[in-house]
């Protein structure tokens, strides 16, 4: 069973389409990175999957259930980018409210995690730092023992050490419990460390949805003369080409460098930025499909 499946999913706010023609399959048991520029529709997509927003058109399922259905709610935890918490409550009351709202609740996990983070249960939620609030939200999301975790830029307010710690914890949960994570972030470098599946969303449409390893294996950064870029289009599938004086840096879907070009492996950041620079280029499904323009 896939963690997420959408078919023709669309969401319109008045005259603006936030998400459009979204066909997406996210496998279970992986950390999936969801990236895209501001306004690309990441938050809308995650809110639809969390059952917080109804789509305008199309269908979506999370772990085989309709988002917002009792079965989906029991299996899916979500943290919105606004980190929704009751800020007037003490941490203990916030935890008690969460425990009351759920059939499954791992009080030991929550207790140990918060004491490891040094978050006192007597503290008011609103008095915690932004990072501590994000940690509290994440702790409660995982204490529900979900099978799918939807995270909308949860690390933005964390310092680098805390981000490392959270990512490590997530990886442990994925490895030990088979948790699926769909993770939206602007910091691609941190996603690179944990994500094994990549979804790039641009202007409300899915641009890339494929396994990270396959993408990295099938793309190369080519460095060569700017004057030869036009000829290169006949030899390889070019995602994007950047010219800097007489030299050009090309992101291409190819296994080997053509004659006259030097190649090196691409990083996930280069791959994402390359596709975002060229919104018409798409790779959906396992690499092997052609780039669609």
């Amino acid at each position, binding site marked *: 069973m896939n963690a997420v499946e959408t078919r023709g999913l669309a969401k319109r706010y008045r005259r603006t389409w936030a998400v459009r023609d979204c066909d997406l399959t996210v496998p279970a048991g992986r950390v999936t990175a969801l990236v895209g520029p501001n306004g690309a529709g990441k938050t809308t997509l995650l809110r639809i999957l969390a*059952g917080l927003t109804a789509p305008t058109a199309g269908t979506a399922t999370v772990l085989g259930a309709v988002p917002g259905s009792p079965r989906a*709610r029991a299996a899916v935890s979500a943290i919105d980018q606004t980190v*929704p*918490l009751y800020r007037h409550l003490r941490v203990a009351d916030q935890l*008690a409210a969460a425990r009351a709202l759920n059939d499954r609740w791992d009080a030991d996990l929550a207790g140990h995690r918060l004491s490891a983070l040094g978050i006192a249960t007597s503290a008011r939620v609103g008095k915690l730092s932004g990072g501590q609030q994000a940690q509290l939200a994440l702790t409660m999301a995982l204490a*529900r023992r979900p099978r799918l975790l939807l995270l909308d830029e949860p690390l933005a307010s964390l310092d680098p050490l805390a981000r490392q710690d959270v990512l490590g914890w997530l990886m442990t949960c994925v490895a030990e419990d088979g948790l699926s994570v769909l993770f939206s972030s602007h910091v691609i470098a941190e996603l690179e460390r944990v994500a094994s599946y990549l979804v790039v969303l641009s202007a409300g449409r899915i641009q890339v949805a494929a396994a990270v390893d396959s993408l990295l294996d099938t793309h190369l950064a080519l460095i060569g003369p700017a004057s030869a870029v036009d000829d290169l289009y006949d030899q390889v599938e070019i995602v994007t080409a950047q010219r800097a004086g007489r030299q050009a840096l090309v992101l291409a879907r190819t296994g080997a460098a053509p004659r006259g070009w030097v190649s090196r492996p691409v990083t996930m950041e280069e791959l994402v930025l390359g596709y975002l620079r060229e919104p018409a280029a798409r790779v959906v499904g396992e690499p092997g499909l052609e780039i669609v323009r």
Partner: protein
Amino acid sequence: MTAVTMLRMTRAAWYKHRVSVVGIPAVFLLAALALFADGAVQRHWISAHHLGGCLVADLTTGGSDCQSGAWIMFISPSQTPNLIAVAVLALPALVGLFAGVPWVAREFESGAFRFTWTQGIGPRQWLLGTFGPLVLLATVSAAIYGAAAYWWYQLAQWQAGTSIWPWRWSSFELTPLSIAGWTVLAMALALLCGVLIRRVLPAMVAFTVALGACAYLSQFWLRPWLFGIGTVVKQASWTSSAGWPSSITAYIARTWFQTSGGQRVTYLPAVNDVNAWIAQHHYTFWVAYQPSSHLIWLELARSGILVAVAAVAVLASVGWLRIRPAD
């Protein structure tokens, strides 16, 4: 929604809104206590002066005591009790305004609803599960408060020099049934305004307008309309008390003349001797009235209408939440 879900939501509501859950009954019960204390002091004074017999609509029942200086001292020409009655009636509205509206609107405004909706609870369960117990609590407290208000107003009317007449608007409103009905309506309108507007201050303004409109309609249209339904109609004498209701606590809904042909006439022509004119033209005089035994049924009907409007507001809130959950 299952009982288990309801219980879970109620427990969660306790953790989230403890101040309101304690505060609402506390406000009603403290106000009830104040009315009870004031009523008790007045009743003690009346009892100490052996003036209990004067506390009937027909002052002749109490005999000469009711002409005594003590009784005259008790009756103040001040209208203060009526002003307090208005304040008493405002309490359900204030509870709706300052506790009901923020209860929902603040969750939307702060985005905290996303926390609950991403737990094991859906939007509809969240709405009904948190609001239901609050409304129940507020209604029970309001009914107790209404009982105290009713008890207090029996004497307060006398003190204002307006004697007891159960059909007066203030007497009709200051009952447990009426105050509970207004509380249910206030809470339901608070829910609707919160769900529709989703921001605390604009929702409070909308709530004030909506409840004000309901109060206006109830006062100037619904109550007069209800008082005209199910009346006892009798032929009565124009010149004597024959045919008129025997109790002075009845409510005369309307009177009219009828021609020998059965046609209703509200006004007579200006003549010198009305009685002679009536006899000459074979007119009969009719009276339609509500006996005092109808009062409870009319109060029940009016409270039922308030609760029905409240049910419509709750259904509209649930429907709107389904159409527009969190956008």
